[in-house]
């Protein structure tokens, strides 16, 4: 009876995992999806402990409860306390824990399985190896993200070296299974090789590519869990693991695509950070890019957005799509106004001519003096093809040709997004510090095209 019930609970948990992931892919339901998957997981864990058939010594129960309680407290607190910006590292850390768990299971089970079910040895080893790689790889990724390990470390010919190790490791595992080499020496040696391989796999990859690597390691851990499922003929581990394995792999590819970096070159090419063409002046650091779809979500959940149009809007003839953006945002309850700098564009009133053409309400156009105090209450400022009129050098740099010109003080807003095609300078021919500030992200591309994408993403958000 118990053992029967447990299957139903496992089935239920698997379904919550599927539903949870599905809901996680949509901003509206993501949070609920996470909770649903967590619920299924809790049930599955509880069921596993409670519905155990054979009698188990209470010591073991205490140990299990102790481990779970400890893990819960530590995990909960860490997750709750971490700063927003440090979350990716934490994900990597937790992923490593999962990998370590799988590796440990392999280490413990190997002797037993070798003794009783030699046909399952391959499965045990596979789970152990993958878990170990995921563990050590995740630790390296974590160290890179939190800054302990700053640079990509590359041994000479590291690609070839890594491939050789990989092949050797697999061959060794096959040998163990085939030759019945069940001595624990072999097991621990294999384990060590896997750990080393995990380190060597991640260490040459640049920091900018870490999210992709974590996602990949994440699907590895999923695979390791699935092997656990095979081992114990346990459906929830199997399905949960496979689910994460396949979804994680797809996600990795999707992320690569979003970053415009083929997975292959992330792993093997490893040319490090993405570089952005910079012109009209020395680079003053690196800029952060934002994708149209991220921006769409960000705007969707804002309460106030200010659009700063500039000459680029006119060049792109993007006046109609900017109006569409305005309409869509307003429909979603976002307040939108336009901040018009007196010399935006190339003729007095250039922006007025454009925006009147697309029927933007005159009341939505705000003069510089009126709008400057409003930025502080603004969630997102979207600068479209403007440059000089938002250049802080006008206030700070007496040597600048625009020094003394009043500017739109977009920096007091919560976040600034700048759309332009490149890092090229504007009319005054000078570099703009704003683009390198922490609050600023760049949305590169022709204004008409990029805003079209933004509008599309917004529409798809319902």
């Amino acid at each position, binding site marked *: 009876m118990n053992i029967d019930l447990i299957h139903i609970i496992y089935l239920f948990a698997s379904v919550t995992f599927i539903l949870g992931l599905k809901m996680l892919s949509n901003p509206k339901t993501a949070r609920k999806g996470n909770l649903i998957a967590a619920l299924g997981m809790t049930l599955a864990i509880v069921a596993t402990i409670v519905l155990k058939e054979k009698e188990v010594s209470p010591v073991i129960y205490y140990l299990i409860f102790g481990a779970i309680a400890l893990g819960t407290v530590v995990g909960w607190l860490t997750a709750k306390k971490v700063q927003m910006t440090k979350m990716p590292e934490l994900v990597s850390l937790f992923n490593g824990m999962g990998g370590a768990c799988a590796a440990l299971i392999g280490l413990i089970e190997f002797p037993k399985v070798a003794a009783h079910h030699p046909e399952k040895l391959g499965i045990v080893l596979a789970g152990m190896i993958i878990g170990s790689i995921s563990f050590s790889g995740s630790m390296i990724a974590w160290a890179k993200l939190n800054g302990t390990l700053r640079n990509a470390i590359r041994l000479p010919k590291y690609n070839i070296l890594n491939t050789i190790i990989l092949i050797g490791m697999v061959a060794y595992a096959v040998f163990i299974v085939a030759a019945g080499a069940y001595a624990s020496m072999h097991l621990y040696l294999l384990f060590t090789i896997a750990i080393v391989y995990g380190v060597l796999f991640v260490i040459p990859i640049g920091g900018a590519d870490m999210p992709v690597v974590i996602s990949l390691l994440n699907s590895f851990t999923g695979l390791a869990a699935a092997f656990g499922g095979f081992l114990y003929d346990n459906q929830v581990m199997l399905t949960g693991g496979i689910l994460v394995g396949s979804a994680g792999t797809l996600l990795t590819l999707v992320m690569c695509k979003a970053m415009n970096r083929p997975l292959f070159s992330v792993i093997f090419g490893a040319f490090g950070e993405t570089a952005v063409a910079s012109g009209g002046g020395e680079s003053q650091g690196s800029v952060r890019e934002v994708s149209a779809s991220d921006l769409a979500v960000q705007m969707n959940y804002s309460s106030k957005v200010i659009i700063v149009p500039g000459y680029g809007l006119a060049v792109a003839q993007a006046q109609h799509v900017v109006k569409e953006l305005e309409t869509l945002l307003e429909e979603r309850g976002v307040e939108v106004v336009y901040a*018009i700098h*007196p*010399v935006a564009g190339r003729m*007095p*009133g250039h*922006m*007025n*001519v454009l925006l*009147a053409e697309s*029927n933007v309400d*005159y009341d939505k*156009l705000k*003069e510089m003096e009126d709008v400057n105090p409003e930025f502080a209450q603004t969630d997102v400022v979207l600068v479209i093809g403007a440059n000089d009129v938002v250049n802080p050098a006008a206030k700070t740099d007496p040597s600048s040709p625009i020094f003394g010109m009043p500017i739109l003080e977009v920096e007091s807003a919560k976040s600034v997004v700048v759309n332009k095609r490149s890092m090229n300078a504007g009319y005054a021919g000078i570099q703009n510090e704003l683009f390198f500030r922490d609050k600023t992200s760049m949305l590169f591309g022709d204004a008409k095209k990029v805003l079209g994408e933004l509008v599309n993403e917004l529409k798809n958000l319902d």
Partner: protein
Amino acid sequence: MKLAVLKETDAGETRVAIVPKSISKLKGLGFEVIVQSDAGKNAAFADDEYTKAGASIASSAAEAMSGADLIIKVNPPTKEEVGHLKKGQIWMSQLFHRLNEELLGDLKNAGVSAFSLDAMPRISRAQSMDVLSSQSNLSGYKSVITGADHLGKIFPMLMTAAGTVTPAKVLIFGVGVAGLQAIATAKRLGAIVQATDVRPECKEQTESLGAKFITVEDDGVKTEGGYAKEVTAEYLAKQKEAVNKSLAQADLVITTALVQGAKAPILISKEQIELMKNGSVIIDMAVAKGGNTALSKPDEVVHHNGVKIVGVSNFPAQIPTNSSELLSRNIDTFLGHLISDGKFNWDMEDEITTGTLVVNNQTATA
């Protein structure tokens, strides 16, 4: 058949009834076309363009008319031209026949038949022959240009380094053909446009051009053949109330309100003008029919209390090239309707023929 095109005689009239482009169509209908010399000059159609198109040139009106079967002009004939008419000839022009009893008598006595172009019925299939409509349309455009020219301000909003220029506020009375085109033109130039009319369907039409409509709380007025009827004094009072606020803020006011067969209604009183801003401008398009304001005078600029009241009685004459083109097309389409197989075909069952044939001496046919 011979067709004579006369040069206009009215002061300030620059149009011509037939433009060179229509000649080939008219020849196709079976006409030989004689054009009075310099008839198209003011509208930028030179005599040699007519001859190139296949017309011949007559040096005087008398010469052109003698021997013609059909004589065409934009405006009603002068006494002198009536004198040149011969029995059996056909006259075609605007005649404003309801206001021109005497002229009609003269034409009847001359033994001619006469078509009045402005009497075209407002039915769908007559739209392409309706000169009032085609000319009103151009007038609506031109009224805005004239207003923009008189105004000390510009229309669009401009936010510049030297400060923000606020957009001009334009208020339009009468949302007929002219009013609609005025709305469209003023909107294009960037003004904030409001309009009002007695006919309730004008609200949607106004909004379809992106402007605001001022609704006068009343039952509205039913139309008759496309024209508005006269309204009650009560309505006019309510209208005053509804528009006064807009009037006080307006930079440019354009009035186009006409009532078929009656004097134009006075929509803006002297007191209302005194509400208006220093420097504002009124363009009165109804001035030829008595005017929509208390002070407007035909073809004069009246200054009152800082407000310019500009009465223009003949807007189409200010854009003679286009207005002549459309007129000419209206007329050639109309002739196409009247003529079959190279002969006039007086179908007295047909609303278009009966509506426009205001003097019928064609005893032979009918």
